[in-house]
């Protein structure tokens, strides 16, 4: 069970998407990049909404698209479920009938389709809204309906196009956490398109960073974040992310170490902050910052205007500093330093 894709799509003279993609069942691949990088084009090609200019797509041994052999399986015959960016729930159908649509299209009778759709609505937590029209649903509810609609047909390939982008900040945290659990349960291959590094790092097992239609780096989220190979990637994927258990404003991290946060929370949490939020000092700083801890330089990667420093300690941390600061601090692997982080820079999410 696996996805093998060589995607080449010519979009006139200005843009060509060129992307190789391999994923195992159960794996979630994150396509990360800014607008115009070709993420959505890749997703549309996988869904069959766009034919490849060259290359091929093979899912579990079945060829879905092969430009050279002139084979093309249209979208309605691909075992793929898609969650679109603004969900595209059919406005004239209830939530239930939206979810049942794919089953009905595959010939299931109305009663069975609705029963199964209802089961899925309950599974995504909105069983009570089965009769609601999409315009009566909140953004979070609509996202859940869209997910149920994509998953109800048991697709072997799940395609998520910016699944959280349309949500407001608080809903987003909640839905992201739920989505992570659904993806963990999902046996097929997932391809997730996002421009948000945090979404990518929380949800994806492996990242492909796209720029101008090409993959500029790939690897696990941690690899990519720790060793960005360009300024572009460093800025895009710069995030420190930890799991931990929170009591009030204190979070014990699973990787060791403790952070103090400005907001209170309890239970399992995700903790995140950007590399620019971290400052480095030769001596223990005497400051109002709540978090200071000793670290040691592991590696340095300079990319034009920023140098990303990977530091070991409790916890390990990434810091972005200017090349001037690198010189001032006289950094080299093994240099002992103090890391400093303001509590207000830390974002906490329920895990």
């Amino acid at each position: 069970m696996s996805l093998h894709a060589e995607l080449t799509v010519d979009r006139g003279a200005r843009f060509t998407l060129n992307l190789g993609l391999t994923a195992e069942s159960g794996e979630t691949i994150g396509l990360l990049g800014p607008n115009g990088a070709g993420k959505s084009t890749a997703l549309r090609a996988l869904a069959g909404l766009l034919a490849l200019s060259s290359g091929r797509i093979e899912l579990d041994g079945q060829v879905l698209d092969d430009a050279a052999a002139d084979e093309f399986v249209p979208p309605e015959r691909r075992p793929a479920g898609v969650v679109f960016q603004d969900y595209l729930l059919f406005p004239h159908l209830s939530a239930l009938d939206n979810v049942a649509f794919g089953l009905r299209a595959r010939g299931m009778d109305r009663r069975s389709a609705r029963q199964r759709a209802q089961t899925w609505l309950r599974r995504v937590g909105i069983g009570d809204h089965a009769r609601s029209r999409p315009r009566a649903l909140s953004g979070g509810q609509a996202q859940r309906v869209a997910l149920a609609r994509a998953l109800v047909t048991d697709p072997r390939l799940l395609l998520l196009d910016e699944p959280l982008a349309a949500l407001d900040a608080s809903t987003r945290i909640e839905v992201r956490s739920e989505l992570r659990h659904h993806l963990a349960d999902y046996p097929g291959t997932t391809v997730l398109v996002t421009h948000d590094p945090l979404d990518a790092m929380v949800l994806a097992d492996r990242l492909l960073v796209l720029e101008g239609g090409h993959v500029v780096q790939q690897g696990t989220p941690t690899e990519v974040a720790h060793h960005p190979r360009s300024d572009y990637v460093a800025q895009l994927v710069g995030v420190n992310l930890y799991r931990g258990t929170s009591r009030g404003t204190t979070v014990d991290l699973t990787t060791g170490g403790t952070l103090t946060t400005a907001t209170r929370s309890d239970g399992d949490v995700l903790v995140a902050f950007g590399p620019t939020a971290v400052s480095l000092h030769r001596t223990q700083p005497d400051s109002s910052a709540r978090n200071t801890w000793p670290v040691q330089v592991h590696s340095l990667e300079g990319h034009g205007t920023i140098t990303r420093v990977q530091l070991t300690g409790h916890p390990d941390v990434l810091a972005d500093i200017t090349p001037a600061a690198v010189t001032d601090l006289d950094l080299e692997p093994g240099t002992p330093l103090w890391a400093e982080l303001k509590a207000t820079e830390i974002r906490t999410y329920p895990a």
Partner: protein
Amino acid sequence: MTTTQARATPARPQARSRRSRARRAGGLPAVLVLPALAGLAFLIVPLAGLIVAAPWPTLLERLADPAVLGALRLSLVAASAATVVCLVCGVPLAWVLARSELPGMRVVRALVTVPLVLPPVVGGVALLLVLGRNGLIGQYLEAWFGFSLPFTTAGVIVAEAFVAMPFLVISVDGALRGADRRYEEAAATLGASRWLTFRRVTLPLVAPGIAAGAVLCWARALGEFGATITFAGNFPGETQTMPLAVYLALQTDPDAAIVLSLVLFAVSVMVLASLRDKWISPNAA
């Protein structure tokens, strides 16, 4: 009247928050309101003229005339049947126009409007040349099936459908081109064939456009005169619709013509108003 109230509101700031909703709804600038009123008057004053000139004392007596009822019934039946014909052929035609990427679609789209620009009488003659007893196609209908359209109610329906079809096609074409095609893509990814997508997604999405087009189409068919009398002829009970009856009454008895016109008008307003409540609003809201 709403407009006057609403326009007075900004001068009373204390009432502003309470009335802000009304003000937003009706607060149109005079530069729009005045031509709008002129336009409305232009459209309804001739109707008022008919109402004033109507022979009210003998109205009921004239209405009870079986010939009037026969013509009215024929008009309603023929216009409704023509609308059905237009829906059956016009909606798919609009779909092809809106969706096909073949070169030359612009020309086809222009051709669809031919019945709009053709004087209806000429349209009727054109229909005779094609579908008449000796017409290009009509001669075979006659020879093979012993069937001839002119001077039959079916001929009335054909003439009305010919003239009214562009109203439906243009309306549905516009709705289709304005509709978000990504819904159709979503349906495809859910396993829906193109036909199922058309039926279950596209049609409901453009339903308001189809309804509006069907209403225009029906109204045009109901008032159709030139193509009908030329192609289908004029015979009471068979092909004499209300507009034909009105025209002939006008030759000898203008009062009768006014009564017939008012009846036609009243019935069409009743039908359209009741449809609007039941059919158009829920989708358009």
